[in-house]
């Protein structure tokens, strides 16, 4: 069945029609970038997850984190549960890996802020 999605490549927000039964044919796009976005968003939608994790030994009690690349949208809930269970010990540095290949994806969960201990 043809699905309608909003293109997010640029602010124009084209309403794309993507047909999974016809090799993910994209219509409604104003530029070629819409085609690749439309195909990818239907074949394998992915998102970068950003959140916080608990941290001990610092003035702050939460540390911002992200997946260092996009993960399948379907794994978002599962990854959030892992994120919620982590507790870091200060100090941490931006880029420190907290969980490698989180939920069997290609992405690592990494620290996004330098936090010193107190």
């Amino acid at each position, binding site marked *: 069945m043809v699905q309608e999605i909003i293109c997010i490549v640029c602010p124009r927000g084209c309403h794309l029609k993507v047909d999974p039964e016809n090799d993910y044919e994209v219509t409604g796009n104003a530029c070629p970038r819409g085609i690749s976005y439309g195909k990818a968003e239907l074949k394998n939608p992915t998102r970068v997850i950003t959140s916080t994790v608990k941290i001990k030994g610092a003035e702050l009690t939460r540390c911002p984190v992200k997946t260092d690349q996009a993960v399948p949208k379907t794994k978002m809930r599962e990854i959030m549960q892992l994120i919620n269970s982590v507790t870091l010990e200060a100090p941490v540095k931006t880029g420190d890996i907290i969980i490698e290949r989180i939920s069997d994806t290609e992405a690592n969960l990494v620290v*996004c802020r330098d936090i010193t201990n107190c």
Partner: protein
Amino acid sequence: MQIIKEYQLIIIGGGPAGLAAALSAAQNGLSDILIVERDKYLGGILNQCIHNGFGLHYFKEELTGPEYSKRFIDLLSETNVEVALDTMALNLENSEEWRYLHVMSSFEGYRILRSKAVILAMGCRERTRMNIQIPGTRAAGIFNAGQAQLYVNLEGYMVGKKVIILGSGDVGLIMARRMTLEGAEVVACVEVMPYPGGLNRNIVQCLQDFNIPLYLSHTITDIKGRNRVEQVTVQEVDQNGKPIAGTEKYYNVDTILLSVGLIPENELSREAGVPLDPRTSGPIVYENKETLAQGIFACGNVLHVHDLVDFVTEEAESAGQAAACFVQSGGCVKQDSKIISLKTDSNIGYTVPQQIRIDDVEKAVRVFFRVRKIFREPSRIVFRDQLKSEIASFKRPFMFPAEMENVNLPRQLLENISGTELTISVEE
């Protein structure tokens, strides 16, 4: 009163604008620079903006807020820029030669500093429920989106379980996703305008991903709940923004997040006698971000509200450079330069800068502006002088109020205009 210390440049605010301005001023040769920051950390609002999407223009990569500010904080640590954290700027006074700044902290006390130049980089604050006069009770559970963001992301507290969001600005959309991922239920996002206030990307990834409905041309018209929010009434609005009777929908929620606009924080500027533009709520500035008060520059959200931090950084860099130039040459602008005022037609909300001193323009001046309605079809941005002759025109395939636009006006074109006014308009 005793002057405690003297600087070449003081920057008020250590958020993205202040950081970039300080770096740029240092790179342009100033050695005595102070950043005054009221928070305990540098980085400003970026510290609580833990989502990604920052830096695509400037760094050509996607960073989270803290990562974006870290790039500048790291560079700053290699300079001798002084930073006063947990320090409040209370009062700014202007004179011919010096700018006087009263600052205060618990560890350094009350101090009066003076500086050759000052850059205003105080950012903005959120419009509140009271600013837009939503009637109802004054129960707990009504938060500005940014305030909720601080509680959730920095302090680690949840502000509610069942949430409705008023306003589709980016902060509100981002918080819809954050609250959902943290286990709350977001029942709807309601927007009074007929178009969304935030980026498409956020509509898709923060609302659609979680099946949160977006109601355009709707608003909250009543709040119930004596002590904590219990129910809100949502109504459709007509073309004039007036609620339409009979369209009431009721949501039983404990929390309302408001993302209904930002206001540049110019209390210090106002007291210092810096003339403000009612359209931006920020200072009126020249081509180099100098305000009409000599030696005082402005950049970032205190000047006008930006949607992308990348543009804040660029603007701040040019302000830093101009301030450095001002300090080094006692004002690098020829006093007798012809000044052109930029006017707007009804389709354009404002411009920054508002005034251009032609002699100060090297090759071209970049003019930022916002349109006031959606242009889905190709249109032209046209500059006309007082004789209505077209001076310059720029094509755009589409334009949205949520997106700040900019064009480069070459100096050459400015030199030939009649009169001292240029009007910018949109012609379809």
